[in-house]
Each structure stands twice: as C-alpha cells, then as structure tokens.
C-alpha cells in the first residue's frame, strides 16, 4: 500500500513538455478517471514513461479508453485537428473515422491481453482541416493494473506516411515508365550502371538489336557483342560520364539481321538517367530503324541521276515531219542542235538552209533512200548562226499509209561534233602510227584480241612479196619456216592464254625463197579494265647475229668436244700409268722376293760352308735387295699420290698423327724421341695421303736426328693469312699452317728447294738410308690439296717443314 501525497501526485506529471502541461491543466474531475490524485499507480507509471519518451506514444486507459499522448506523438494529429482536446477524451469520441478499424483491436488487447504490430498501415485520420491518408507503423500492447488485469492500451507508433508515399510515388513512376517503355512505338531501353546492364528493353529494341529477351539483365557488350568496335559504346560512356544527351541521325550500326551482320541506319538518342541523389545511374536509349527511309531516298536519288545522265548524255532531239506538207514539229533541243536558243521554232527549209553546202547532197541522197526503204540516216555538217560548223547525226523512220504512201517521218537528231573530233584524233594518231610503222625496217603487225592478224607494216609486204593485205593475213603462216611453225604456234598460244609477252625466234621466207631469222615479239594492249584489246608485234631481222652466235656456239661445242677427248685421253693415260705402277711394283717385287728368300736360305742353311767373304757378299746382296724393295714401294706411293684416287673426307689430323706415331713406335722408342704437338685442325682432305705425309715427315725427322741428342719433334698448327705464306701462288684466303720442327742434323739453307725433288739426296746411302722420294711424295700430296710445303734447314741445328692448306668453311 502506497500513500500518495498531493505533492507526489503532481510529480509523475512533471516535465513532459507541451503534453505534460496540457495534462496538468486538464480538469480531470470531469472525466471518468477523476482527479490525478486518485489515479492508480500503474497509470501513473505508464504516464511517466510516456511523457518522458522522445518516441511517439499514445495511451488509452480504463473502460472508457481515456486518452493520453506525448509531445513526440503530437505532430501526427496535425493542426486544426484533434489536439489538444484529444487529451482526456474518450477514444471512441476522438477517432470516429477509424473506430471500426481500431476499436476491435483495442477491445482484443483489453479483453485478451493480446499485442499487435503493424507496419506502414493506412489509417486515415482527420487533421489539417480534412481527412488525410496517414500510414502508421505501430504496436498495441496491454498495460496491466495492480490487480494484473488489463487496464489500458499503450500505443507506440510512428507515422510513416512520408516514407510510404515516397515509395508509392517511386513505384508509380517506375510502373509508368515501364509501361511507357513497353508500349513505346520506338525502340526504348534502359542500360543501368557503368556496365550498361540491359534493365529494360521493349520489343522494338529487341527487334532493332536483332535479339530476343535473353539479353535482358546482361551487360550490353555481352548481349550485343557485334557492337564492339562500333562507336555506340563510347557514346554511352560519354553520356554516362558527362550527363550530356547525345542524338544520332542516320548513323550506321552493324547489327544482326536474319543471322548475319548488316548495316542498319538508326536515329537515336542517349540520355542520362539520375537517381534520387541526382547521380547518373543509367542511360535511356531511344531510337528507330531508318534503313528503309535511307535506302528509299538513295534509290530516288539514283533514279534522278540516271535520268539526268540519260538526257544530258545523249543530247538527243526529236522531230516529226509531215511528208505531205513538210511541216515539222521538233523538241526544243533540236533548236540547240542548230545553234539557236531552245525557244526557237525551226521549219524544214530552215534546217536544210543550215546544212553545210558540200554535205547537202549527202542529206538529199539519204532522204531519197529513206522514202524508198523507210529508214533515214546520215551524218553531215551544219553551220550555226555564229558560222561555226557542227556535225549532226540523224535517224528517222518513215510511216506509210495503207496504200504505201509515205505520210510521216519520226526521228532523232543529235550533235556529234565531239565524237567526230575524237574520231579524227584517233584517225590521225593511227595515221601517224602507220607512217611510223611503214618507215621502219622491222616488221610491225597487230592482231585483234583473238590473235587474228589485222595489220602489217609496209616492210612485211616488201619482204614477203605478198601485196594484198587479206592474202598476207591468210598466207603469213606459210612464210614461217616449216621447222619453226610448231614452236611459234606453241609460244603464241601460250601468250594468248596467259596474256604475257610473246617472244620467239623463227625464220621467215623472203619472196626470193631464202629464209632469214627474225626475233618476233608481241605485247598485249589492254583496256582500262585490263582486258586485252589487241596485240602489237614486231619482228626484227637477227639473221646475221644468229648465224654468228650459232657459229660461235658450234665452235665452243667443237672445242668442248676436243677438250673432252683430251681429258679422256688424259684419264686413260693416267689409268695406264697407275696400271703400270701396279704391275711394275708387283712384278718387280716378285723376283726380288725370291732373291731375298733364297739368299736368306743360303745364310741360314749353308752358312757353315761359306767363307767369311762369301757371307759378307750375301749380306751386301741382302741389303741391296732391301733397298730395291724400298725403292719400288716408294715409287708406288709416288705414283699413287699422282693418280686420281682423290677421295676427300673430313679428317681429324690429331687422329692421323696418333696413327702415325703408333706405326713409328719402334723407331720412336729406339731413338727415345719426344713428339710434342698442339691441337691439330679437322680438315677435308684425302685421308690416306695425309697419313703418308705425316709418316714421311716424322720418319725423316727421326732418321736425320743427331746421334748424341734424343730427337725432339714439335708439331704446331695455326691459321694464317696470305702474308705468312711464302709462295707466289698463295691466294688471299686463310691457310692452315702446320709446322714440323726437329732438332736434328738439319741441312744447309741452299737446299731448301732442292730436297723436294725426286731422287734428291743430301747424304750418302750408307749414312742415311732412303730413296729420295719421300719428300717429293709430300710435295705432291700437298699440291693435291691446293696447298704449299716448304723446308728451311740450318746445318746441325735442325729443320722446319711447313705445310699450308687452304682453310675452307
């Protein structure tokens, strides 16, 4: 039990702004609630909350639903409405206009303690001097008294009229826009965002784009990929960025039509659309296909142009002559043909008067013919009033009566002065050409496009002796030497087919019966479109030159044959030489072998029976035969170095050197020789000959070593230019240089050249065995390789043998 003091009665109503004041100033004793001092605690507490809340609140209290609300709620009642008398008023009295809506709800809250929540609910109320549609978001909740029963209904509410109306407005606008676009007779579309997503597009748009509804919601470039590279996207970007509307007229767009891309003419407009914040968020595109209009206009223009061309091109005048009265009716242009203004009317005699006197006969004759045969045609000159002379051409047709009396003649007339002038120019140039052609000693001829001869210069007639052009064209073929006809025909057909120049050497028969060689040449003449119109040909007498050339060729051929024969003889004698060398070496060695064998047998078996001297003789015989064997073998090698066994192969000289060192191993070991070598090149050479070369040079170095010093042989290879090759025949190329240096007994420099000659020896046979062929073989081998070999010796110091071989890539 709480005892309220009068002071505290006032306290729960303290503050609360305008409504707090209003509640305090109300005489509550006149209401079913009675004075505030008697109000239950639950009401007081609730009121205290309501009045201090900044959120709009409203309270119905007690069975009579006496009303309270706060400042925040106040604006919802408007001016000239329910405020301020709604305070303390009974609900049913305050809200008659909506009681049918809220009454049942309030009753349910009061009776059952239910709560309700509504959003954007339309509850029209009377305010601002009239009934207004007001939207509310609100809740009804029960307020329980001390006894726990529902004593009141607390309304927490918010007027959302503005928001709802905005939304509705926007929806309506959007709906209207959509329907407008959908029904628009021209293509209309909205592209939203910077990607230009197709948000809206009416059927007309789809038709224009050549697409269906599947493009909806896609970026424009995905939807209409053919627009890539066309100016439209850039225009849209520009409009989107600047907000400036773009209008295009008869712009060509390449769009899909019936499955292929075609040129479509469009008139269109791109306009920026803005959102509520005035920011551009889309582009409205409107347009229509004007292809047909454009095409129609072009056709019309073409037709008009043709018409103009036709009339202006022909400059044709028409006339109608009455053959009985010789009255003539003519088109205005006819007057112009005679040099008068178009307004002038000319009579038949006027016209005859104007004819150039010398041509009058031509016309009269043509007229007579026309009357008989029905067609009138002439070309003649007329004299204009200014005395200038003009060519005219007239055509006419005579119309007869049923009994064949000529009645009328209808015809045309035109000025052909220009044509005549052009013809004369051509005639003159043709005349010039003929004069030129006739003055030349060469044959000049032309053919039509099919290759049929239609002109010959005078020289052809003179040469062939055929004076009639027609006959010459027919017989020309027969003037070609029978042996040359087939080739001529083939070459000519080839040129005709390919359109290339004709060029052929053949013989033509002179009228005296001899044939002379001619070089014929023809070039096609083409019209502006490149089609061949004719061929212009020439034939030049090359008889003397040809004979000279032939003779030269014959001589060359003869000389070549002679050389071949010589070559063959040479080859044969080379072969014979090789054969001889083989037979000699084989057959000479045969008896030698026997001598050696039997001498050996005697020394082996009969040694005991021989005197000391006899044994010595046998030994000398043995050594003589060994030397002879060596001689034969060396000669064989020398002859082989000469022959044509010249099989070049890429060879590593290091390998060759290794091979040679192995073959000479016994001597090297025995003499304790040292052979040093740098890396040797790989060369394209006759392999076995280089093996022989190395063998001979190294064997020489070993043989001519000093007795007291072990031989040192150094082999060095490098590449040098011509300056380093001491030979007059050296070319200006690089050479491989291979130097073989020894520390042997050497020789005197004056023998540098001589030692390469066959059988040249610098020492007695007893001192150093040898045949004097080895170095000659070396020289031969190097010559086979287009190289050079040189020796330089110093007595008792050693020798250097240098080999040069051309370095080829």
């Amino acid at each position, binding site marked *: 039990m709480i005892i309220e003091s009068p002071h505290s009665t006032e306290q729960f109503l303290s503050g609360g702004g305008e409504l707090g004041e209003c509640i305090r100033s109300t005489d509550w004793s006149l209401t079913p609630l009675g004075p505030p001092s008697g109000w239950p605690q639950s009401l007081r507490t609730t009121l205290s909350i309501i009045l201090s809340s900044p959120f709009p609140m409203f309270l119905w209290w007690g069975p009579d639903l006496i009303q309270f609300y706060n400042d925040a709620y106040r604006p919802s009642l408007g001016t000239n409405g329910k405020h301020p008398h709604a305070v303390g008023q009974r609900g049913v009295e305050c809200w008659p206009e909506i009681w049918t809506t809220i009454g049942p709800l309030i009753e349910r809250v009061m009776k059952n303690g239910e709560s309700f929540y509504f959003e954007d609910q339309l509850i029209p109320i009377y305010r601002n001097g009239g009934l207004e549609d007001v939207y509310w978001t609100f809740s009804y909740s029960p307020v329980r008294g001390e006894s726990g029963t529902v004593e009141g209904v607390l309304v927490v509410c918010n007027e959302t009229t503005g928001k709802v109306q905005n939304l509705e407005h926007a929806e309506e606008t959007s709906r209207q826009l959509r329907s407008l676009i959908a029904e628009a007779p021209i293509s209309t579309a909205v592209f939203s965002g910077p990607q230009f997503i197709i948000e809206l597009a009416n059927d007309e748009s789809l038709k224009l784009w050549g697409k269906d509804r599947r493009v909806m919601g896609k970026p424009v470039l995905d939807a209409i990929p053919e627009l890539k590279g066309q100016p439209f996207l850039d225009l849209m970007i520009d409009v989107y960025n600047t907000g400036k509307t773009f209008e295009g007229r008869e712009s060509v767009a390449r769009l899909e039509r019936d499955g292929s891309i075609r040129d479509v003419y469009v008139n269109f407009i791109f306009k920026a659309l803005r959102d509520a914040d005035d920011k551009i968020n889309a582009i409205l595109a409107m347009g229509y296909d004007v292809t047909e209009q454009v095409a129609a206009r072009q056709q019309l223009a073409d037709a008009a142009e043709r018409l103009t061309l036709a009339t202006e091109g022909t400059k044709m005048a028409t006339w109608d002559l009455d053959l009985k009265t010789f009255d003539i009716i003519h088109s205005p242009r006819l007057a112009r043909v005679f040099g008068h203004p178009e307004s002038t009317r000319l009579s038949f005699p006027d016209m005859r008067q104007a004819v150039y006197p010398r041509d009058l006969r031509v016309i009269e004759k043509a007229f007579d013919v026309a009357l008989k045969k029905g067609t009138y045609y002439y070309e003649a000159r007329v004299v204009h009033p200014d005395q200038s002379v003009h060519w005219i051409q007239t055509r006419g047709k005579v119309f007869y009566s049923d009994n064949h009396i000529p009645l009328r003649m209808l015809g045309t007339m035109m000025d052909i002065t220009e044509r005549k002038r052009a013809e004369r120019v051509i005639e003159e140039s043709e005349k010039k050409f003929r004069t030129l052609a006739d003055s030349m000693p060469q044959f000049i001829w032309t053919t039509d496009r099919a290759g049929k001869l239609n002109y010959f210069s005078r020289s052809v007639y003179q040469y062939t002796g055929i004076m009639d052009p027609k006959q010459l064209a027919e017989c020309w073929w027969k003037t070609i030497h029978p042996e040359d006809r087939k080739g001529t025909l083939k070459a000519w057909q080839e040129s005709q087919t390919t359109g290339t120049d004709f060029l052929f050497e053949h013989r033509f028969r002179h009228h005296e019966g001899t044939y002379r060689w001619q070089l014929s040449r023809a070039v096609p003449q083409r019209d502006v479109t490149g089609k061949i119109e004719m061929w212009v040909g020439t034939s030049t007498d090359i008889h003397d030159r040809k004979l000279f050339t032939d003779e030269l060729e014959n001589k060359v051929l003869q000389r070549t044959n002679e050389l071949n024969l010589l070559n063959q003889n040479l080859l044969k004698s080379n072969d014979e030489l090789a054969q001889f060398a083989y037979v000699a070496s*084989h057959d000479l060695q*045969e008896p030698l*072998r026997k001598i050696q*064998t*039997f001498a*050996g*047998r005697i020394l*082996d078996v009969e040694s005991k029976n021989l005197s000391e001297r006899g044994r010595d003789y046998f030994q000398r015989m043995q050594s003589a035969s060994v030397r002879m*064997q060596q001689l034969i073998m060396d000669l064989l090698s020398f002859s082989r170095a000469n022959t044509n066994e010249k099989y070049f192969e890429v060879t590593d000289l290091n390998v060759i050197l290794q091979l040679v060192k192995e073959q000479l191993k016994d001597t090297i070991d025995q003499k304790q020789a040292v052979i040093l070598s740098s890396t040797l090149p790989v060369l394209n050479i006759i392999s076995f000959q280089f093996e022989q070369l190395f063998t001979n040079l190294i064997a020489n170095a070993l043989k001519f070593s000093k007795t007291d010093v072990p031989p040192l042989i150094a082999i060095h290879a490098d590449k040098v230019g011509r300056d380093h090759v001491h030979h007059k025949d050296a070319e200006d190329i690089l050479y491989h240089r291979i130097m073989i240096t020894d520390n042997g007994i050497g020789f005197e420099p004056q023998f540098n050249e001589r030692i390469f000659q066959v059988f040249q020896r610098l020492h007695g046979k007893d001192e150093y065995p040898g045949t004097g062929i080895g170095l000659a073989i070396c020289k031969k081998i190097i010559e086979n390789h287009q190289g050079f070999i040189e020796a330089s010796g110093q007595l008792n110091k050693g020798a250097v043998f240098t080999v040069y071989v051309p370095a080829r890539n």
Partner: protein
Amino acid sequence: MKPEKTIFLADDDADDRLLFEEALREISGGTQLTMANDGEQLMTILENALLPDVIFLDLNMPRKNGMECLQELKQSPKLKHIPIVIFSTSTQPEMIDKVYEGGAHYYISKPRNFGVLKNIIDQILSTNWRSFPQPSKEKFIIQSRQ
C-alpha cells in the same frame, strides 16, 4: 701326336712350290702334300682324290686362275666345305675383298723370309677346321712381317 693331314697346293711358280714344300717338311714330316701347277690341274686332281684338309691357292695362275678355282670349289656341293687359304704375292685390296666375299678362309701374302713362311704354314696346319667359320675381315689377312 698330331693326326696325319692332307693338304693341296696350287701354284704355277716352281720356286714357291719348292719353298713351300721345304717349309712344310721342316714343320711336319707326316703331312701329305699334293701340288698342282695351275688351277686346271688342281680341279682335275680333286675329282678323284680324297678330299684334303685344306687347299693353298695361288691367284695368278695360267689356264685357270685362283679366283676361278675358288668360285668353282664353292659352287660344288662336294668341295665347298674344304677350307681355302689364298697364297699370293698380290696385295691389291680389291682382290682381297673379292676372295673374302668368295668364301676363302685366309689370305697370305707370300713372305720374303723362310722363317715367316714356316710360322704361317704351322699356324694353318694347327687350325681345327671343324666348324671353323670364315674369320672377320681383319683376321682374314695374315700379314707376313718382312
């Protein structure tokens, strides 16, 4: 004890026949040697004689040369299995290639030294010819060191 062997030699050079026989006698007294003066004689002998263990064949012979003999021998079903040793002064590579292809077993170029000749004959005699195939080209030529 080696089994007795029979060998044939065809050579038109009397000196070489003499040297061959002397060398053979110094190696083996028991080996039977039949000699022919040329290819024709060799083929005649072969018609009736017992087949030898090996034939030494000179190449350069009158009437029927060694190459012709070799071809005939290798074409005969009866004679084609007899091992042939070419015994010649020639050192022509073409000829060596030809007789190798013709099926000869060895190629001997006639040595200048009697001792060498003996060594070679000894080597040939001690060869077991049963299922002895033609050697490789390198081993085909028996070089006589001079």
